């Protein structure tokens, strides 16, 4: 949680609504350095390539494709650019898709300005940002997966959450901040960060096809 340096994180805002972009820009105020805005996939990819910001605030839904297209396109060339997904959407499949493409976190657009600044700083520092909703999605995704006996390449380390990780996610879903989670579980805030980053890594690296299918199945019912 400590800031790596005193300079403000450089941020690009990608959202197709101009009104929303300017709203976010004013909420971030002087706390971060907004170096650019883009309204669609292609402009965003080229702008990010030019500016190489610390953090990209990325809308999950863009007219030219999902936010995950921006993430995949940029990460191929600039893996150091970090993404924080920001969405009004409740659809879990879209959120999971962006996270799996490489975003470091997900917050809803109803987030307060202070919390958003805090989230941007964490992502800039390389931490993962889990909103209660994302924690719920992840718990749901991993819990609803049946025991995968059918996969020879099953990797238990990647494909399951530990009991501790589940505990941490549950508390986040209940509305606890990382600090409160740490106090509740008698662990350090740093350890909470470690658990959350590990969950993010599993979410991104797990090759269980059920995880990708989960979203689609959920939408059907």
């Amino acid at each position, binding site marked *: 949680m400590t800031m790596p340096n005193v300079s403000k994180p450089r941020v690009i805002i990608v959202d197709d609504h101009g009104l929303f972009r300017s709203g976010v820009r004013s909420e971030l105020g002087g706390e971060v350095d907004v170096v650019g805005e883009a309204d669609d996939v292609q402009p965003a990819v080229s702008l990010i390539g030019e500016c190489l910001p610390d953090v990209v605030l990325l809308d999950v839904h863009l007219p030219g494709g999902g936010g995950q297209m921006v993430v995949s396109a940029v990460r191929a060339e600039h893996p150091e650019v970090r993404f924080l997904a920001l969405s009004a959407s*409740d659809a879990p499949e879209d959120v999971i898709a962006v996270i799996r493409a490489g975003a470091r976190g997900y917050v809803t657009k*109803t987030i307060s300005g202070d919390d958003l600044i805090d989230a941007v700083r964490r992502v800039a520092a390389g931490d993962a940002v889990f909103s*209660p909703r994302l924690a719920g999605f992840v718990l749901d995704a991993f*819990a609803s997966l049946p025991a995968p006996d059918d996969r020879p390449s099953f990797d238990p380390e990647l494909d399951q959450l530990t009991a501790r990780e589940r505990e941490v996610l549950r508390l986040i*879903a*209940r*509305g606890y901040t990382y600090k409160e989670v740490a106090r509740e579980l008698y662990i350090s805030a740093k350890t909470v960060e470690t658990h959350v980053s590990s969950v993010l890594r599993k979410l991104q690296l797990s090759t269980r096809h059920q995880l990708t299918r989960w979203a689609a199945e959920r939408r059907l*019912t």
Partner: protein
Amino acid sequence: MGLDPTVVRLGLMVATLFTAGYAAVAYVAAWLLVPMAGSDTPIAAKAKADRRGLAVAAALGSLLILILIAVTTFNVPFVGSLASPLFLCIAGLVMVWRNAPAAERATLRDLTEPLEGLAGHRSWSAIMVRAVIAVVLAVGGVAVFVSTHRSLLLLHQLAGVALVLAAVVVLFGPWWIRIARDLVTERQARIRAEERAEMASRVHDSVLQTLAMIQRRADQPQQVVQLARAQERELRAWLFDGQAPGSLDGQDMTVSGGVRQIQQEVEAKHGVPVEAVTVGDCEVNDDLGALLAAAREATVNAAKWSGADVISLFAEVEPGEVSLYVRDRGRGFDPAAVPGDRKGLAESIRGRMARRGGSATVRTAPGQGTEISLTMPRASERQPSRG
């Protein structure tokens, strides 16, 4: 057919003259196989399934062969060489007539009175032009027949047949295609209109009503925000979960649906945002109904008394039990100091849970916010029906 059909037809007619009538066969074949604009299956696909049409085609073809044989016996030498293109053309045209994408009955009806149909759809001058062309072609074809039947130049004789066929195509082809297209377009337009009407009624019941209310309460920002938020939830439930507006109190309620209902109700009535997260899902029985009722009470309490900006509502459905947490970062309270006549927590929450075999715990202290944890065992050990 990207090109003007007339250009295509004229080109084919010229080609027909040089290819011994086989270009006419190719034209009919193309007619059968190339899908029309606005339709994605070629006529041939339908023709394959049209047994009666096939029978008619075969019958006409065989009749033609009989005639040809009869003519042959009278020593008219050119007929044999005409047989195959002629036969193929006639059979193909029958299939086209019967299976153009329009409704079959319309096609058949109109086929019986083609000239009447023509008169109804086209200007007379265009018809006259085409009729003249057709007659010229037909006469030309017959003339070529007659003038050259003794000759050994088969090319000329075939050209004659082709001219006659081309006359038929020129006269009726555009008309068939136009009728078929009209019908397809009309059907698509009707489907779109029905969808739009359905959409309009739903949008009216929800979004437009809310917008009207917002206009009337423009001077009360708090209420406008509440209305907009409640409407946003409803619209989102419709767009992403397929839950139609106004059908919130569904007969088969699920835990996630119940949580969403609490969220909407509290946001609308008390103006406090509720961050609701549900993991897993199952249907609500009496026990879980009590759990939801207790959770609703706890959420309403938090909205009324805590002063918090946001209330977190988290539900998790597990195979053995359902847990629900209502948390706020508001002012909290001292449980021991709650007056004895305040029944909310004791009766509506603890009592309700205890009667059904569940439990409720309260964690709070002044200035520390409040969290109420509710747990209800699932009586029937069914697997959670995860969505």
